[in-house]
């Protein structure tokens, strides 16, 4: 007979599982709009997990953090990305550098590796959410894989944002979140980064008439 796991713990584990599944879904998705949808859902899951932990531990600042996540990662950034996609007319990513089954296999290896990497942290963690640390590391590394294998600037950016989701999830599960001033600062940086990127995309488009990154491979060593 397995020991009974409390309901909120089960819900948290479910959130963690959904985060991981969404990372894999992003890895395989080539339609840019769907990619942004997935990102928004991942942000929503992160917010849900944060709310659960906040309710369970009664940490007031986690409610604020969840609200920030919803405002920024579920509403504002996806809206900004949809707008960019429409204005720049980039709907599809081209074939990734590694084919789909290959990417998935590498992804699996990464998940196993992440759990190994998270082992020393999980061993000393005292939070109720420590089982999710391995998943958080996986989300970060899978996002990294996505950035490496994609060619379109837009998919790389979604990968970058997903990596940041994973980091927040990691902070939440290891220590119930960072101090508020740091969380605000990080959120501000992400926001500014996306605004800078918006400007930047238009500059790239103006110059090359496309957002395909193979235009950006001319600076080589020795030139």
């Amino acid at each position, binding site marked *: 007979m397995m020991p009974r796991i409390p309901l909120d713990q089960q819900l948290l584990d479910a959130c963690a599982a959904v985060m991981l599944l969404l990372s894999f879904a992003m890895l395989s998705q080539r339609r840019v709009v769907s990619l942004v949808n997935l990102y928004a859902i991942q942000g929503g899951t992160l917010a849900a997990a944060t709310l659960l932990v906040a309710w369970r531990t009664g*940490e007031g*600042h986690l409610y604020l953090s969840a609200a920030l996540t919803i405002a920024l990662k579920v509403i504002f950034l996806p809206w900004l990305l949809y707008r960019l996609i429409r204005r720049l007319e980039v709907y599809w990513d081209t074939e990734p550098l590694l084919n789909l089954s290959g990417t998935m296999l590498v992804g699996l290896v990464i998940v196993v590796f992440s759990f190994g*990497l998270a082992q*020393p*942290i999980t*061993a*000393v*963690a*005292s939070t109720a959410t420590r089982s999710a640390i391995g998943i958080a590391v996986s989300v*970060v590394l899978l996002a*990294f894989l996505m*950035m490496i294998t994609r060619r379109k*600037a837009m998919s*790389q950016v979604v990968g*970058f944002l997903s*990596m*940041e989701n994973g*980091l927040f999830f*990691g*902070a939440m599960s*290891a*220590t*119930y979140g*960072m*101090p508020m*001033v*740091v969380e605000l*600062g*990080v959120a*501000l*940086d992400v926001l*500014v*980064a996306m605004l*800078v*990127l918006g*400007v*930047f995309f238009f*500059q*790239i488009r*103006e*110059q*090359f008439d496309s957002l395909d*990154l193979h*235009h*950006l*491979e*001319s*600076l080589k*060593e*020795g*030139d």
Partner: protein
Amino acid sequence: MELLFLLGLPVAGAAVFAFAGARREAPEFNVAFSLGTFLAACTLAARVIREGSLLLWREQFFIDPFNVFLVTLTAFVALTTSLFSRPYMRIESAHGRITPGRLKLYHSMYQLFTFTMLLALTTNNMGLLWVAMEGATLSTVLLVTLYRTAGSLEAGWKYFILCGVGIAQALFGTILLYFAAEKILGAQGVTALLWTHLNAVKSQLEPSVLALAFVFLLVGYGTKVGLAPLHNWLPDAHAEGPTPISAVLSGLLLNVALYAVVRCKILVEGSLHSALPSRMLMGFGLLSLLLATLFLWRQRDIKRLFAYSSIEHMGIATFAFGMGGPVANFAALLHMTVHSLTKSSIFFTVGHAAQKAGSQLMDDIRGLITLSPTIGWGLMMGSLAILGMPPFGVFASEFLILTTAMREQPWATPILLAALGIAFAAIFGRVQPMVFGETRLRRLPHAPALLPVFAHLAIVLLLGLYIPPYLADWYRAAARLIGGP
């Protein structure tokens, strides 16, 4: 109070220039704001010399001998660079490479960049340090792409993505640090990320977690230092952006990033009681040094050449911090100072030389000494200084590092010597025909600013001949603080 001015003036400057940065007198105001910041830095430094380390504003800011010297250096180079950028950007406008709108962006971001660096240096909060480092990237991305050429866009994109990903690793490292600290310093730690508190309890922090944290922090901030193999963004960003930005990136940003690495190293070393952090720093340092010297040979663009030279010198400083101990730390701090001054002065001359030739390719730049002797001599002296010729200060720091390496890490000595030799041949061989040789260069529409060049070189020369006692005390105090095995 000094701190308020130090951090407030650049922010105010950024706000003012966001509206009025395209005005005719904007460059003069840029100098004025930078001068104000520098004066604030000087008074702050005087206060630290008088009263010792300071904790300000509910311990959120911490000034000790280590960072106050970098604060002063940063404010000083920001000031001289603003002096240089005054005629430089006017010439760029006259050559039609820059529109008034972009000039506004440039001035505003220049001040914001100064602010993020000073914030990174003075903050006591490891989380805010991260935020400021990321802010430094964001404020310079649009400056790298200021000319909107294909090359500059590529450089900007690379800079953004590589440093973004790198800094994300550092965030993970910071989270791990917080995780380890929270156990000792208590949850809901308003204090758990404050460096002074971490430093006080560093021997109790969980070693396995801190070791992992250090790997991520080193990779993350190391990307910004330009340590190989994460250096790819650096030469592109230096070559494609406007020259004043190359000067501050090389002279200041790399220093600030290295500062972050060293701060982390102090904590981790206190927890681990092993040589792991030192070995990692030495390894990354030597690798950067070697790779950079090999790439030096293949460069044709003058700004890329000196960008690789920056990687080389950051490698030397990182290696010295890795060796640790009072002498090596002293040498590394001195090396950071003289490299920063020399490299920015080189970029000043290089900027005007490239404007005269209308090209950054070294084959197009010839005979500087005939047409404008000051630029030619500036470049020659700067290159000799950076190559570690006596009596310049770089010689003193490299000599100290080499002799310490012979005693502490004899295996590294041949690598260091070989790399320095190769770098000498590569750079001197390129600079010589640019300074002498036949010329067909044009005149510039505005008189170039060479005062900063010779001011920097004079200080470097002075530091090579004689380090004033208060400065030496200062370095020694900082070196003791950094410690080592």
